[in-house]
């Protein structure tokens, strides 16, 4: 049991416990919609055309950006559309997506070429690249490109495998452990090969005895240990986990890699194993479906791009009006309808009955300070709320707004039901915009000044050139004059000598 603890956080019961958390494999969807804009990085560009036949695991969109992971076809079939579709995002905005209709065959691209089990013979660079071209991003929900993360933590001393659930109610990581515990252990061994980590710790909450037993059973590597941590919400957040398992506090604005820790979600480790050893890119993930409208919560291994509707058709839903959100009860984003597709960072779909979960109307802040006591990253949520509400972003940033992990503990305990996290999200978005605008104005200023300087220089150079030309011309004319003088003198000489001769002849 871990000896370090973190301040704040919440001890929450799983509101939707399930007797069985097995990972259910569902049949192939008829159609997948793959968004080209992932959570981090530029939007990928499609490299297939409409009507083209694609194989499972084939790259359909990519971009020459280090921070961007390519998008792979998750089923085999024909590309039927490349158009704008609504994204599973709070904005409800559209972005470019590729739609593939299944041919029902699930024909794979050639997966025989690659590192296979003899990955020890591959250089770390080859494996980084393999992770990149396999489109792996953080599967815990943040969606940070894994190859970048692994590369940043090249010299790390500890590999921390995050086997804790993101939030109460989500069980997809536990179901993944039950299904693929050997892959997790072997994935950690792959990571040993490419990083300098001496040990690996698989951190798991103590309320999952089955998963812990299974991991212990299959772990026969001395360098890998399994550490149980108390079940307390937000322990799954990277910074908090590093603190509670290793006792290392990550400084503000830094990452786990800065303190020599490589922290990866179990789903990511499984994906790395699949990519490196089995040569299969990331085309599916585990998703929990829960909520008070779901009779029995279930976990599904589903192809990326499958629609929410398709996934929900395998669960028993109560009749009535539903409220759907991506991710769980604490950090979930409420969505309008179910017309979305599963992406690389969809860890959970929550379906609630609309009337049961109508949010209470927010009231004024009574300055009780409860939010301050539960904040796991030691911020002052109340202070941040005032500044965010007043759009005083600089001040909020002074109070370390950017260190907020948006865990939702403050909103959960607020007796006035103020949606505090939404305010912080607003402030953060505004701050990002301000920073971007500042960058743009600075660039415009320097470009304007450079242009002025260039015009000035051109003018000066032209004037100098004219001056030089004039001078040269004058010199030429002057030398011409000298030449003329010489000729004239010669002519005179000749004529005078002629007249002399004539005179002599006359004599």
């Amino acid at each position, binding site marked *: 049991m871990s000896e370090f603890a973190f301040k704040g956080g919440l001890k929450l019961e799983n509101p939707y416990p399930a007797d069985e958390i097995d990972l259910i494999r569902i049949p192939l969807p008829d159609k997948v919609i793959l968004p080209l*804009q992932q959570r981090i990085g530029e939007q990928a560009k499609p490299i297939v055309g409409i009507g083209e036949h694609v194989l499972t695991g084939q790259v359909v969109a990519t971009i020459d950006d280090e921070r961007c992971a390519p998008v792979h076809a998750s089923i085999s079939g024909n590309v039927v559309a490349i158009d704008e579709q609504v*994204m599973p*995002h*709070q*904005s409800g*905005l559209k*972005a470019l997506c590729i739609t593939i209709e299944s041919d029902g065959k699930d024909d794979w691209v050639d997966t025989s070429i690659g590192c296979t089990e003899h990955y020890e013979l591959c250089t770390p660079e080859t494996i980084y690249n393999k992770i990149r071209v396999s489109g792996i991003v953080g599967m815990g929900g943040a969606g940070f490109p894994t190859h970048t993360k692994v590369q940043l933590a090249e010299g790390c001393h500890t590999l921390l495998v995050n086997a804790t659930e993101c939030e109460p109610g989500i069980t997809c990581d536990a179901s993944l452990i039950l299904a693929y515990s050997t892959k997790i252990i072997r994935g950690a061994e792959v990571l040993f090969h490419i990083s300098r980590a001496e040990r690996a710790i698989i951190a798991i909450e103590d309320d999952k005895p089955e998963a812990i037993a299974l991991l212990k059973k299959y772990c026969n590597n001395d360098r890998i240990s399994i550490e149980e941590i108390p079940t307390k919400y937000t322990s799954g957040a990277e910074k908090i986990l590093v603190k509670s398992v290793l006792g290392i506090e990550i400084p503000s604005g830094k990452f786990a890699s800065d303190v020599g820790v490589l922290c990866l979600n179990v789903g990511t480790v499984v994906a790395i194993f699949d990519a490196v050893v089995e040569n299969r890119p990331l085309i599916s993930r585990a998703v929990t479906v829960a909520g008070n409208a779901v009779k029995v919560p279930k976990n599904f291994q589903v192809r990326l791009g499958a629609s929410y509707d398709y996934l929900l058709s395998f669960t028993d839903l109560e009749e009535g009006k539903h409220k759907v959100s991506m991710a769980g009860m604490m950090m979930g984003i409420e969505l309008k309808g179910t017309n979305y597709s599963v992406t690389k960072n969809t860890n959970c779909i929550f379906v609630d009955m609309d009337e049961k979960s109508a949010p209470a*109307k*927010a*009231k*004024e802040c009574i300055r009780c300070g409860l939010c301050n006591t539960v904040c796991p990253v030691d911020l002052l949520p109340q202070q941040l709320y005032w500044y*965010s*509400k007043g*759009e005083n972003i600089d001040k909020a940033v002074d109070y370390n707004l950017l260190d907020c992990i948006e865990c939702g503990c403050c909103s959960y305990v607020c007796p006035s039901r*103020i*949606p505090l996290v*939404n*305010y912080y*999200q*607003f402030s953060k*978005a*505004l701050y*990002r*915009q301000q920073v*971007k605008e500042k960058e*743009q*104005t*600075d*660039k*415009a*200023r320097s*470009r*304007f*000044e*450079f*242009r*002025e300087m260039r015009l000035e220089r051109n003018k000066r150079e032209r004037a100098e050139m004219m001056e030089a030309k004039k001078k040269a011309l004058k010199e030429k004319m002057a030398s011409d004059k000298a030449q003329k003088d010489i000729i004239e003198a010669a002519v005179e000489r000749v004529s005078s000598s002629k007249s002399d001769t004539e005179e002599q002849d006359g004599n």
Partner: protein
Amino acid sequence: MFDATSTLSLLALLFGLGLGYAAIRYRVEGNPLVDQIDAILPQTQCGQCDFPGCRPYAEAIASGEAEINQCPPGGQEGVDALAELLNIETMTLNEEHGEPEPKRVAVVDEDVCIGCTLCIQACPVDAFVGSSKVMTTVIAQECTGCDLCIPVCPVDCIEMVEIKPTVRNYIPDIAELAHV
């Protein structure tokens, strides 16, 4: 009497030398106020303020030749920020110079462009790429949306397009959160 006079004279000489050295060593180039004003201005370089760019306008404000409310792209927020910097009463944006509009970028209809290069000469931030008698295009990231290329185009092939919100630059509406 002599001691006192000589001590004070010596001190005065030392301080004088010190100050003289500091004046040369820490000399401020240019007018720092102009830089501060320029930092607030949006750098659109559109000339709507009747000055040929943001820097000249900043110089005019600093010397008292121009009012602080002549910059439409900066909006009312910009006017307020200038008033705070100069410690004067804020004023409303002068609509004679134009109204604030959402940020836009120039897009060239490349089929129509005749390669006259007039837009390249008009652009204050060198956002156009092209050469004479070949098609011209805009580097969208560099365009400030100043509209200066619109009037000079002889074939009207430049259009100002509003920047659409995307998932990446989306800002949630705080008014929706407002309560009670």
